């Protein structure tokens, strides 16, 4: 069995990628930190810029150190407390779930909680496990109706009613 591309990527050079990415973030953060305006009155010894800049510099240094160490030494030790290795990932599945989630968020207010939640739950469960469609359908209906009722009628949290309202 050939190890998947994903696993290979994860093993080699992952610290270089992670460190490099965080370094870019830190530099962008520092640029934004230097543009923090001066307060209208200067009474504090330490202004609003100082700590963000210090954090940005430390983050840049630490990320660079991670990338350099990864380049020369390979992967850093895995966190033993995280237990078993994470299951191998299918990035297409992640992409589809993330897109469904985006659709859910954007339709949350216009369609209302009950309908958007029902559609999202049904879509996700059907995508991941299409054999049990009856179970998925029942689950999506029960979840959206029960959660909506508990929040609105028991806890008094207003949720968007959308097209049902």
């Amino acid at each position: 069995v050939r190890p998947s591309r994903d696993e290979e990527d994860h093993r080699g050079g992952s610290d270089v990628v992670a460190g490099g990415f965080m370094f870019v973030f830190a530099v962008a953060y520092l640029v934004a930190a230097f543009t923090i305006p001066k307060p209208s009155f200067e009474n504090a010894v330490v202004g609003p810029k100082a700590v963000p800049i210090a954090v940005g510099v430390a983050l840049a240094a630490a990320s660079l150190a991670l990338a350099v160490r990864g380049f020369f030494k390979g992967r850093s030790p895995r966190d033993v407390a995280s237990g078993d290795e994470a299951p191998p990932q299918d990035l297409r599945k992640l992409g589809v779930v993330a897109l469904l989630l985006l659709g859910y968020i954007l339709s949350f207010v216009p369609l209302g909680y009950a309908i958007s939640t029902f559609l999202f739950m049904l879509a996700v469960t059907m995508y991941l496990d299409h054999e049990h469609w009856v179970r998925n359908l029942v689950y999506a209906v029960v979840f959206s109706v029960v959660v909506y009722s508990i929040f609105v009628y028991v806890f008094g949290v207003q949720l968007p009613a959308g097209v049902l309202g």
Partner: protein
Amino acid sequence: MADIFARLAEGFGEALTAANLIFAFCGVLIGTLVGVLPGIGPVTAIALLIPLSFGLDPVSGLILLSGIYYGSMYGGSTTSILIRTPGEVASVVTTLDGYEMAKQGRAGPALSTAAIGSFVAGTFSTLGLMILAPALASVAIAFGSAEYFLLMLLALAMVSNLTTGSQLKALIATLFGLSVAMVGIDPQTSVQRFTFGVPYLSDGIDFALMAIALLALPEAFTNMAARGTSHLDAQRIQGSIWMTREDWRRSAGPYWRGSILGFLIGVLPGIGPSLASFLSYGLEKRLSKHPERFGRGAIEGVAGPETANNAGVGGAMVPLFTLGIPGSATTALLLFVFMMYGLQPGPQLFDTNPELIWAIIASMYIGNVMLLVLNLPLVGLFAQLLKTPPAMLYSGVIAFSVLGAYALNFNVFDMLMLLGFGLVGYLMQRYDFPMAPAVLALVLGVLAEQHLRRALSVSNGDLMTFVERPISLALLVFILLVLVLPPAVRLLRARQAGRHRVGTQAGGQQ
């Protein structure tokens, strides 16, 4: 002492009302459930329930949410023992001997000793909290901004240094949390920082939102995007769940050692119940006359860690109540809940809201009894939860996350940030960055910065303010020790290991 008992009696009066009993019960029940379900921990559950607790009064809300915290420590052991998948980080070490015991048909006694040890520790550490917290509060009254800043720095140094994984990655996670914490209007000068003209960012990025995005979503994404379908191979609970006389005898020592160790470690900021359980396992193995039994189903290896992680919860409440400084991601969320109710945990809290503190403490005694009653007979029922299909479980987690994000501020922008930071969290998890330091830094970041700046403006920029007073000097020394000791120990160990290897090679040549 007499004062403590009078206060505690009042606390019981408050905690024993029908409503608060129900909230305590719901809390420990939800705690047990999320403890059992792998991938959903107490932090996730508390973060998701924060919007719900807006409507409750502070006592009930905090009783409910604390119940989830200590309840989850009970549930975490169940999955460790039955399927070798820890429900909680704090139960990782329980898998070593717990699962072995289950394979040998002794799942019952393993679950029992975990539940009874948890009860002993929960009760002991609540007692410790009750005695230590007021004493510490009376000392902490004298703390100024310099001391608070150093204490928070200590918590951050500990959480990023005493990790079980890569220290550099924990440090990066801490700094990432700090950088996000800086977003919003600076409370001292009213200057906008990193808001880029977006009005939603003026108040900063909501801490509960970040906690959900960094803790709940990545776990759901990882499980949903898993290649193929996973099978859980659960061990059956056969025979009696009760422990034999021999089991009791062997568990007694780990119970009291784990209680004391777990409590003391819990009190230290930045290291929570998880490290306590690891240390307890090491301690029991070292003290045992039969260390070779460990890893092959030694009941001590279940009793000790499960006791220690529960005792850690009571310990972790001490700095939260008395100093307002959380030591872990979970207590950071509890601090957020306190502040949401307009309460500022700290030494004054014992004077201004004693009934609240003592009601929570009393509810912890009650909740631990409930947990013992719930867990011993019903553990088989909870284990059934493991059969929940992942697609249903994690789509539910995502739906609750979105609902939680919406209920915080009722805007779509927050939900989009949830998705964005959820994906960031997913990547962080894929690249082995620990999440707890980032979450802790998020809540401590602004507080620590404000205390630093206040301390320096009081002293007119004189850095000596951090070393002049004995308490701040001691804290500074402690921080240096935390930063220097672990690398030094590792270096020494590496040397010893090198010498050892040379020694065995030399021995092999003879």
